[in-house]
């Protein structure tokens, strides 16, 4: 396990031997004058499945936004395939990296098929608005995510779980091999959380996507992700396999939580059983 205190430089450990797709170097992220993330280094390798965890307000969503080029770093930089992401044209980024915001809004009345079709935007131009490839990719994305039957339904009439599937279908249609998801399971009941994470896991396993997901639920993160990145107060505290990261000590350090960590009886991944909140 690699841990570090907020003072020491944080370490990062790639989980697979693949080449580095996305990297953060000395990242400082701020909204106006308020610094949210400080001195963060991180590398994400090709074909990895990483979950970013941490307490509310630790800067994990902010980090994801910076990795997706939605937020310009106050210092440091993000590298996409070795190239500074801020210097890469928006459209090139959109062809390499897909991003699902935390609570994306679909305009009222927009159908699932139209939503998924919007995923093709980075591949289209004014003349080339709907190529045969676009059509095939969208149809395949709909059927792969089991949204074929709902294709003509307005997105705003779907249940939360179906809506999230529709957005993931759009990300799939975008055709990027890097996908960043910001808390895709928010507001979903447990069975739909599982449903969405199974779909994300299939994106990784069957479609070879490199996945980075911000998650709240530690047990689900440990079960689905190959690698956990734990943050607190804008600093990367630990990074490694779920077994390396989810220790009783880390839960106390990062979440102020006294907890027992036992093997998940189904998946064997570490499972957190909370005891009580620690006062600091």
């Amino acid at each position, binding site marked *: 396990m690699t841990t570090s205190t907020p003072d020491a430089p944080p370490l990062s450990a790639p989980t697979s031997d693949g080449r580095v797709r996305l990297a953060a170097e000395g990242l400082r992220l701020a909204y106006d004058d308020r610094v949210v993330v400080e001195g963060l280094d991180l590398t994400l390798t090709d074909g990895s499945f990483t979950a970013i965890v941490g307490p509310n307000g630790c800067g994990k969503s902010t980090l994801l936004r910076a990795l997706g080029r*939605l937020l310009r770093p106050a210092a440091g930089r993000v590298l996409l395939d070795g190239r500074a992401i801020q210097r890469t044209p928006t459209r090139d980024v*959109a062809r390499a990296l897909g991003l699902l915001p935390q609570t994306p809004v*679909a*305009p009222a*009345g927009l159908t699932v098929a139209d939503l998924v079709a919007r995923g093709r*935007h980075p591949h289209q131009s004014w003349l*080339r608005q709907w190529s045969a490839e676009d059509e095939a990719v969208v149809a395949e994305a709909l059927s792969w995510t089991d949204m074929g039957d709902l294709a003509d339904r*307005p997105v705003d*009439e779907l249940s939360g779980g179906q809506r999230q599937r529709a957005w993931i279908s759009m990300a799939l249609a975008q055709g990027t091999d890097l996908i960043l998801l910001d808390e895709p399971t928010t507001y979903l009941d447990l069975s739909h959380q599982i449903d969405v994470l199974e779909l994300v896991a299939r994106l990784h396993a069957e479609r070879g996507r490199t996945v980075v997901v911000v998650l709240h639920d530690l047990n689900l993160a440990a079960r689905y992700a190959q690698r956990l990145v734990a943050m607190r107060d804008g600093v990367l505290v630990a990074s490694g396999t779920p077994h390396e990261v989810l220790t009783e000590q880390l839960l106390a350090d990062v979440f102020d939580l006294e907890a027992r960590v036992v093997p998940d009886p189904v998946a064997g991944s570490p499972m957190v059983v909370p005891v009580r909140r620690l006062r600091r």
Partner: protein
Amino acid sequence: MTATVSTVRQTTPPEPGGRPAGRAVTLRLGPVSARFRWRAVVVPVVASAVVVVLGALSLGRGDYPIGVGDVLRTLAGAGEQGQRFIVLDLRAPRILVGVLVGAALGLAGALFQTFARNPLASPDVLGITQGASVGAVAAITLSGGSSAGELLGGLGVPLAALAGALGAGALLFTLAWRSGLDGFRLVLVGIALWSAGQALTDWLLTGAQIHDASAAYVWITGSLNARSWDQAEPLLLSLAVLVPLALAAGRVLGVLQFGDDTARGLGVRVARAQGAVVVVAVLLVATAVAAAGPIAFVALIVPQVAVRLTGGSRPPLLASALCGAALVTGADLLTRTVLPEALPVGILTAAVGAPYLLWLLVRGRRTPA
């Protein structure tokens, strides 16, 4: 190179409340490809036909009726002197101004409403037409009074209105811009500008001579009376540039609708696209209002009517432009024929448009922005 046109049957959604998406048609010709909903094609075609019929009717109607045959002969270059003057110099430019102003307002309304994701975001509410009113009323009431008044009077009412609208648009843009434009903030800033403009207009009117105030009031209502080629020509030229720009923005608008983060994730340079959309919309409104005054309700109602006719998730640009043209042309025809006294067209667009929108709202369940 092969051209393919295919139709895709889209099934009616089983749940109540959903609207049938309608058939889609795909068009491919070499590297060029596009996809439309049938209704998004049919509505503009029908609206264009309505504009042509209303315009043709309008050419023959008025205080001095001219038969259809004579109108056609005159248009073809023949016909007697008096009829030529009435048709070509009096009625044709007036009708053309009506068509163009209606199209510009409908299109600008669709741009603003889609961009702000808010059906209230029309140039009437955002204070841009109010800015034009301030300019025009100042030019009418202050001319001869002071040196500033001289300047305004010399500018003429249309140019003063144009300056007022552009000034309001520039203020709106600058005050609402915060490294990008937020629809909600745009509406709030717009409403503040609207109130300020209203206060300025009222202040100018209360201090004005009664005949000036009356002339100003007619202008504020929006009128096509006595519009000539002097208004039609510049309007035609500016729309020849602005309408293609606006229609080209349609593709990006469809993605901007998702909000900044999603749009950026899909490869759109959001701030640049937002700026371009708002600038084009402001220019459309300014040129329209300079020509005919702030014809009420067109920009607010027409896009909402058009989206209910075509279906879909946002006001269609082309259909909004053509429906706007049809509404203004039709209202102008009514004011000049059926009604006992020639009313400013703006009174009728509000009187006709508002009940129609209410009917659509009562009939339909869904309200896309």
